[in-house]
């Protein structure tokens, strides 16, 4: 697959369709891959990589990239296309400056899961028909790819590309995933248990802001938590309650816009399952307003803001000061 992407990227660069390529760059190991912009065929040939560890969702970078001169080629996995659409819906991406190539994805590996299996000092990983052959300085290992797949990929919501200019490989279907199972487990807890669960999770937070900064739905020019004059400014929690506020407020803010891309949980250095907060909102939306998937189409409006005064909403919600 990587060879095919490189071939196509070079073609599109050479025929002038695009003047640069947003993709993934090789690191020192097989897994430490950095999002990068390639401006020449040579760079693409030498440094472009597409493998089991290319998890990063590139759509957020289009925000700044699409403001630059000329067209940028971007490779989007199925789940990334939802973020892409959502950003288009919010007018954060200049569509004319983007050439989107949809690419197949069979799920990405989570290197932390490999490490949790006691496989360390990894020097190489090869995927041979669904089995990861791993070289380490201590010897060879072999693991079924499914066993070390990222949580978000095990619960993949869709193999369908909802936006692209061209497709490499086959398009898939929206999947009937089990992504709400864990949410249901939490719903079953008593209020006290649930509070304890989240407190134990959120108290690990070091407020590094990785979740916020990687999130394609977090696109504010200045975050309320960074704004000294907002009254909500804080860098570190004064107590554990305050820490939960950061994540709960953030979850509220991206509700209806979050596409469940799972980047927040991927980047959290403390492995806090932040995606569960977002999935709770998505699940509630589905149950209260009917099936809704942010980013499924460009221009769709989140159910909670799609009310009309006469039809849907209580007057007290629409009218300042209550009913007319």
């Amino acid at each position, binding site marked *: 697959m990587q060879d095919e992407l490189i071939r196509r990227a070079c073609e599109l660069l050479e025929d002038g369709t695009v003047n640069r390529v947003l993709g993934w760059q090789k*690191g*020192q*190991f097989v*897994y*430490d*891959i*950095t*999002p*990068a*912009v390639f401006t020449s065929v040579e760079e693409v040939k030498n440094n472009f990589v597409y493998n089991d560890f290319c998890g*990063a969702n590139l759509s957020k*970078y289009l925000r700044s990239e699409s403001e630059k001169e000329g067209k940028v080629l971007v490779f989007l996995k199925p789940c990334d296309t939802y973020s892409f659409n959502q950003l288009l819906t919010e007018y954060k991406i200049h569509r004319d400056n983007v050439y989107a190539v949809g690419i197949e994805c069979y799920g990405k590996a989570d290197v932390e899961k490999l490490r*949790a299996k006691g496989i*360390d*000092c*990894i*020097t190489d990983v090869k995927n041979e028909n669904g089995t990861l052959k791993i070289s*380490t*300085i*201590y010897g060879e290992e072999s693991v079924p790819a499914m066993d070390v797949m990222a949580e978000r990929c095990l619960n993949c919501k869709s193999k369908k590309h909802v936006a692209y200019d061209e497709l490499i490989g086959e398009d898939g279907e929206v999947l009937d995933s089990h992504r709400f199972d864990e949410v249901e487990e939490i719903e079953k807890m008593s209020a006290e248990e649930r509070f304890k669960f989240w407190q*134990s999770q959120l108290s690990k937070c*070091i*407020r*590094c*802001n*990785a979740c*916020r*900064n*990687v999130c394609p739905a977090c696109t504010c020019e200045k975050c309320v938590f*960074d704004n*000294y004059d907002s009254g909500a400014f*804080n*860098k*570190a*929690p*004064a107590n554990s309650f305050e820490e939960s506020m950061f994540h709960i407020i953030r979850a509220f803010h991206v509700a209806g816009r979050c596409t469940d891309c799972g*980047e927040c949980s*991927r*980047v959290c*250095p*403390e*492995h806090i399952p932040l995606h569960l907060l977002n999935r709770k909102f998505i699940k509630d939306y589905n149950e209260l307003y009917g099936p809704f998937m942010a980013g499924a189409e460009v221009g769709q409006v989140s159910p909670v803001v799609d009310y009309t005064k006469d039809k849907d909403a209580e007057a007290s919600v629409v009218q300042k000061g209550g009913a007319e």
Partner: protein
Amino acid sequence: MIVKVAYSDLNKVLDAISANEKLYLPVDNAAGQAEFKPYTEGVQMSKQLNTLRSAKDFFFPQVQPMVKFRREGKHIDIFDERSESEDYVIFGARACDVRSFDVLDNVFLADPVDTYYENRRKHATIVSLACNRPAETCFCGSFGIDAAKPAGDVQAWIVGDDFCMEPVTEKGQKLIDSIKDVLTEGDQAAVDAQIEKIHEILDRLPLKDVKPVDNRDKELEVFNSPKWAELSSHCLGCGACTFVCPTCQCFDIEDFTGNNHTIERYRCWDSCMYNDFTMMAAGTPRKTQKERFRQRFMHKLVYYPIKNDGMYSCVGCGRCLKKCPIQMNIVKVMKALEEDAE
């Protein structure tokens, strides 16, 4: 002199230490990550290579209450509630984290001494543990650290079925003396063989050839390198690297107004990667992520060494290699600067 206990009896050592003073050690949490926790009877020491968060938290916690005030009308009261820390033991710190204490000492113990840090630092006894199975992200050797001789007050090795310890400082000797009942005499030759074994592994690590360039006399040249633009181009500006880093020591000071007009002044970790870090009323001298990214690495690899006799402010623990959301890290920066130097 080497002393030992059977590894299966390690908890006898831990029990003996914690009978006298508070003991912290790496423990696996519910999510399977190692973190330093207070020892309670029966707790097992983590077998993982390193803790997710560094050991700097002991001396420089993420949030440090400093002083309280009360303001009423024109009057202010100051409540200095600092108190002498109790003695405690940090057990199982790795060589990289142990060296990070030296890096932090140069900042916090320089005149004027930071008493919050000093208080926690001087009451700690550090038992370090050699790394039998270093990871691919380890590069402590690049900074002259020997993972096989991890220093601290007492250094320890797991040798086969034994847990061997050697006091390095007077403080360490005191600790060993206080628990000698559970220890037996160890075998120097066995420890030496283990050290040899570790050295062989260190020689095979993929990052063993990464070397910092002494750029102390090229401050402006390195600052002006065209490499910074590319290296920083996709940095998200989060502080994950800073907060997991054992040597990052930048902090903010803020006031928290609680109930009853009591105002608590605290300091908390801050990150030079954040856009408001140097923001003033008139703007900031570090306008884009490039400048902020460059500051972090210039500080570790050039500014700090200039101020501290060539010592780098990186210990090669590899945490940032594992935790950066975009996998851009100090090794990639060091390699780029090495190319520049060639």
